[in-house]
């Protein structure tokens, strides 16, 4: 049997197929638009909440004593299992010995530091956390847009949307991300976003006994963080990565990774 199909018939049926193909997504767009209209009031309130705010974090490394209260508080606040090797924040110890050799450790994120007897030139602690980068590679690489930066400068993960592909974990130069051991989605420090949205401090800042961790709104001239940023010499970690971190370190030694 030979198929007879004139050019005219072909054009007409192709046009029909295309019309259906175009109508379906257009219809879906219209439905989404209706839904988004319903959400617009909620959106407005979020925009209001972000207005006039840009959060920054400053770490004064000289003040950190390595007590790791922050690590414990963070795990508790964010319901992360204490016995699993996943950390939204951790504390590193640097020992530079008399031969200029650097030894670094962070046993269980700093919860298990042991006294070390070494001939050292210098020793210091460096708290680490997500840098909430302005040009975050984790946001760039997420294939479904599950991670995004809020208007007040915090990178969040949408747990309902994340597919758990771990690409963001690969892309973060700071290893601030991990796969949540229970939820099987990407997880990381969000500067305790639920707390700061209510006007509270992040848990780690709240519990730090020496004030090594400072947090605040750089758009508020009266904020302590603005003064601190003005008077201190600041550095970020891995500046050459071009990620634009918003966690700044005072007195950061060049050996810090």
């Amino acid at each position, binding site marked *: 049997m030979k198929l007879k199909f004139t050019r005219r018939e072909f054009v007409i049926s192709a046009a029909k197929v295309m019309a259906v193909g175009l109508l379906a997504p257009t219809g879906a767009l219209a439905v989404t638009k209706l839904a988004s209209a319903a959400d617009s009031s909620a959106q407005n309130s979020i925009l209001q909440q972000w207005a006039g705010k840009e959060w920054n974090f400053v770490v004064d490394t000289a003040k950190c004593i390595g007590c790791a209260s922050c690590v414990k508080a963070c795990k508790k606040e964010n319901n992360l299992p204490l016995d699993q090797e996943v950390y939204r924040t951790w504390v590193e110890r640097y020992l530079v010995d008399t031969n200029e050799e650097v030894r670094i450790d962070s046993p269980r994120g700093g919860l298990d530091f042991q006294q070390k007897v070494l001939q050292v030139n210098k020793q210091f602690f460096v708290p680490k956390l997500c840098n909430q980068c302005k040009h975050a590679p984790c946001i760039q690489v997420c294939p479904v847009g599950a991670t995004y930066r809020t208007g007040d400068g915090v990178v969040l993960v949408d747990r309902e949307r994340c597919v758990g*592909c771990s690409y963001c974990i690969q892309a973060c130069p*700071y290893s601030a991300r991990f796969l949540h051991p229970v939820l099987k989605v990407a997880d990381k420090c969000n500067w305790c976003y639920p707390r700061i949205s209510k006007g509270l401090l992040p848990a780690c800042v709240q519990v730090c006994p020496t004030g090594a961790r400072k947090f605040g709104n750089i758009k508020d001239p009266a904020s302590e963080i603005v003064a601190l940023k003005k008077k201190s010499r600041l550095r970020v970690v891995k500046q050459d990565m071009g990620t634009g971190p918003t966690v700044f370190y005072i007195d950061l030694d060049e050996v810090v990774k």
Partner: protein
Amino acid sequence: MSGYVFPNDLEVHWRLFIVLYPYITGIVAGAFIVSSLYHVFGKSELKPLARLSLLTSLAFLFCASFPLLSHLGQPLRALNIMMTPHLTSAMAGFGFIYTFFLILCLLETWFLFREDIVKFADSSKGSVKLFYSILTLGAKDVSPEALDKDHRIVKVLATIGIPAAFFLTGYVGFIFGSIKANVWNSTPLMPIIFILSATVSGVALLIVLYRVVNWIRRVKIDMPCLMSLNSYLWIFLLTATILEVLEVLQMGYEGRAEWPMIYGLITQHISLSYLVIQMGIGVLVPLILLPLGRSKRFSMRIKQTLTTLSGALVLIGVLAMRFNVVIGGQLISKSMAGYISYDWTLFRHEGIIPDMVLLLLPLLILAVLVRVLPPWFGELKGPKKQADDVSPLK
């Protein structure tokens, strides 16, 4: 684990399944290129493999997304990657590129086998007839003009398929090579190396398949075809390796801050899989054996054995290369001060056994495909038997 590893780096996140992902897509592209060498560039010596290579590409293509899906933390959300793609992500395009290539491969296969499908539908009975009749999609015209049209369409599809295959595998290379946080993988050469090693793996697999299939079917190997594959494998393997070696040499010569870590990685942490398996067994030995396999001094049997052995070694070497890229890159902690150790598992998720099963799956699919659509060109014809008159499913 050695040195200082960031606390969140203790686990290797992309494991053996992700090693299979570039391996399988590479074979897809490589096998497709072999089929296009015949259909587009008219390399008539490859005719015995022109159809088998396309089926091989298709069989592996069916499985290319399996390792990815089973790796996801939330596999049920996998389709979000295509429904709500985040366009800045290098990963977001995979679904589309994959689907495009799948459609292209299916179309080419259909046009290539249409004549046979119609013949099978005509000569068989009952459910087999129904099956082949459905496969014809109603297009039962096998007049010389219609077949000529089929051939021209196959040529067009095979031509589009070449850049598509290069793009598919180069793109997979880009997914890995664009991770700036990974000092071992982050190189603009990665997509090019992937394209070349994909071609290498496709040719190598077809050499091995050709030998195995002909052994099973008790058919003589067509020497010009095998020798042609031998030459292609040698030249592609050589080019891929030169690029890979030059890349590492340049890293060492420049000696940037990350070089000591990379040096430690390749000389200590992946020395077995990189220096011994990838470069030694997978490159050096085949580079010597392949020219010997073409030498006129040896008998046909030795030539066949040397070429097939080289193909098998190259396949192992390319798998090791994928391992060294995917797992090797993750073994350097982002602290740049220590190495993570990979814990091998046998049965658990992403263990060696599930990995082997996933690797055998495309071969099983190929076995079924070959039964449904025999890709042989009338070798069974002749005075004894008229192969085309019998339905292959009987």
